[in-house]
């Protein structure tokens, strides 16, 4: 900026930001602290962060054993990965066709994309559930993946991105003899990497977090995803064992947070890209 801010202004600004950051971190701090405390410490109604009696072992082992925690985390990872792969697999070719090819029905397809953007999975959950029940897919990992393999958001995002790519790139590929399918996977995908990774992050965060669909389709703890698993944990808990609950929440939250901290730039760029195109 032109005139650098006076030190006082800067101090106030930093102060406000630090205060805000403290509020944001408030839950995490107490989550960690409580996960180390035994019930008596939790109930003792003190604001001290360090536990009187160190109970980490008890809390964390409860968290890991009362429900098959590691299995649940694995389910989450598998389901999210499968979803992203299928989403890109189906959406990218269609987005390319929408963006660069001319064919009858293109308008209709795009209209359906807009429709899909409007209708969230929750609204059509009833018929989808009925279909899952009839085909015997309830309580499988497949049922957690299949409804989400269609991502109109991916189609929309990729279409915008591909539209901005120069036509010459594609003409050159055609002259080199590549089929349209080859163009999609050999030319478009590498060049659309920023959009693809942005979308992947978006999708992983959304589906890792999803409670609604697993709640209605899964009842066996073995097959739960992290949000559902945590809900099962809560109901399996006897009394207010907050220590163990906090331990469980920490375990379940950690993977994505670690992923975020290591790939911060990727996350932030992903969000801003979806924002700019949105």
């Amino acid at each position, binding site marked *: 900026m032109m005139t650098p801010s006076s030190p006082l202004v*800067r101090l106030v600004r930093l102060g406000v930001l630090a205060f805000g*950051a403290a509020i944001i971190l408030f839950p995490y701090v107490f989550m960690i602290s409580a996960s180390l405390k035994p019930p008596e410490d939790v109930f003792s109604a003190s604001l001290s962060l360090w536990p009187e009696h160190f109970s980490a072992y008890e809390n964390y082992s409860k968290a890991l054993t009362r429900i098959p925690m590691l299995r649940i985390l694995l389910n989450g990872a598998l389901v999210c990965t499968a979803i992203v792969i299928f989403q890109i697999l189906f959406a990218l070719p269609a987005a390319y066709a929408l963006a660069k*090819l001319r064919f009858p029905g293109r308008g209709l397809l795009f209209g359906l994309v807009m429709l899909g953007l*409007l209708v969230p999975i929750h609204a059509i959950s009833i018929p989808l559930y009925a279909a899952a029940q009839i085909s015997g897919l309830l309580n499988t990992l497949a049922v957690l993946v299949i409804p989400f393999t269609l991502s109109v958001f991916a189609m929309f995002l990729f279409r915008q991105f591909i539209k901005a790519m120069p036509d010459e790139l594609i003409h050159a590929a055609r002259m080199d003899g590549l*089929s349209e399918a080859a163009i999609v996977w050999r030319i478009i995908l590498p060049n659309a990497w920023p959009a693809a990774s942005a979308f992947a992050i978006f999708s992983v965060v959304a589906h890792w977090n999803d409670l609604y669909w697993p709640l209605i389709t899964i009842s066996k703890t073995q097959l739960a995803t*992290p949000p559902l698993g945590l*809900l099962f944990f*809560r109901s399996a808990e006897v009394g207010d064992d907050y220590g163990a609950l906090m331990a469980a929440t920490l375990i379940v939250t950690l993977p994505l947070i670690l992923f975020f901290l290591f790939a*911060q730039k990727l996350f932030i760029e992903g969000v801003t890209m979806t*924002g700019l195109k949105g």
Partner: protein
Amino acid sequence: MQPEATKTRRLSRFDYREVRAALLLCAPTAVLMLALLVLPTLAVFALSFTDAELGVPGFQFLGFGAYADLFADKGFIRAFRNTTVYVALVAPASVIIGLVLALLIESEVRGRAFFRSVYFLPVVSLTVAMASVWQYLMHPSFGPMNLVLQRFGLPSINWLGSSDNVLIALALIGIWQALGFNLVLFLAGLTSINRDLYAAAEMDGVRSAWSRFWTVTWPMLGPTTLFVVTITMINAVKVFETVATLTQGGPSKASEVLLYTIYKEGFVYLHIGVASAMAVVFVAVLLVLLLIQTKVLEKQVHYT
């Protein structure tokens, strides 16, 4: 040898090869769309006019009477009202606070990345998990929030347990979670503003930060603001995880929100006809939100 038939090319707008390729590329998606989007949407629409129940054979077609019943249903009206209150609490607060924080972070040269990451943490934290943490924080007797209030000599608040406060408590959690996302979006918008505009404003005599904001920053943030407001409101209308985890619609149905009610009607009480009607209304609400915002705000948005 037969003479080559003269090829009369039909005047077609489309290249056969291109069309064939496109249709092949779109085929899988089209099938998925039919199965996962079009048919279910039609099914929901159809079901909404009935009083079907899962597991009960046979149902009656009610026509628009189904909707009339719905709008007369007190439970539904309450869900509608609760959701509106929740959105009214969460959306403006998280947008405005997000903007203010973005402005502060943007003028801060050092520590920008640090603050941005800290504020973004809630966005990548599992909602169900953090809701549980907030439950602990908001516990009436030993939750740290009330302990802090007591430290300052203020009375304890029954956050989640009182029907007067529960929506506010849920809104607090919602704002906490949405802030980071809005902040990052606003930051992106702010950094994309042409620096020369600020220089020109300074030369024109725009002196105070307040005037700078209204002369340059706010108008140029138009598209970003539109996007942030839209996304925030839509996400607020879709609130579910916190309610399902913490309150299950209570206490005394004070936190029954639209999605939770749909869930209960459809999957707990198995009244899929009613639930479908609610789902249609739900989508209609989202559609209206989208339309209002694009129409009204687009007039004032300036794309350079």
